[in-house]
């Protein structure tokens, strides 16, 4: 998938573990892994909103289009 989800930097900035992040957002740790390694094919706006609320960021801060990937 050529849309990249960059969570690692934001998580490190907040010293938040994947487990705490997944619990705060309301998705499983497995789905967090799916997001991070680019295997996600679709995401709900409600999930995206929760992520932005937890990480205090904009969608564009964590979503990146990688044209080389396609």
């Amino acid at each position, binding site marked *: 998938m050529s849309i990249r989800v960059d969570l690692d930097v934001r998580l490190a900035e907040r010293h938040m573990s994947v487990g705490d992040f997944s619990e705060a957002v309301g*998705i499983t740790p497995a*789905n967090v892994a*799916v*997001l991070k390694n680019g295997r*996600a*094919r*679709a*995401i*709900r706006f409600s*999930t995206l909103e929760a992520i932005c609320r937890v990480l205090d960021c904009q969608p564009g801060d964590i979503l990146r289009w990688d044209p080389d990937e396609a």
Partner: protein
Amino acid sequence: MKAITITILKFLITIAMVVGAGAAAALWPLSEETAQEYPEFAYLQWPYLAICELLLASFFTLLVAIWALLNRVRRNSIFDASAMRWVNLIVGCGVFATVLLVMALIPVAVITHGPPGLSILLITGITAAPGFTLLMTVMRQLLRQATGLRTELDEVI
């Protein structure tokens, strides 16, 4: 589907199975009596008894398949690929019953006339069986589309 509905349906299936088993047993003496009452059709006794027993067997298979599908509905796994196999079995039962009824209808319609009630039963069956099979084919398509949609939705995070 609520748990109580599933339980009621399973209870009805059990009753249908008991009634069917009773009918399967009662057919043997009944066919004997019919053969004696209409001696000119006595040669039809064993073929038609076989066809009726096979029809009841396909009916039992149908009930088993519905029971399995009800289990899947209860466990919320009705959209798995394995559920489709049971639906295919139901369609197969409908096709099998249709073939049996056509086989039963041909001698009665073409060669000779059986006892009067038989013709009525066969004509009712020969419209009901293909109708049921067609309905189940449509339902099968519905299930396939719903399963596809569910699989796609499961990928959404």
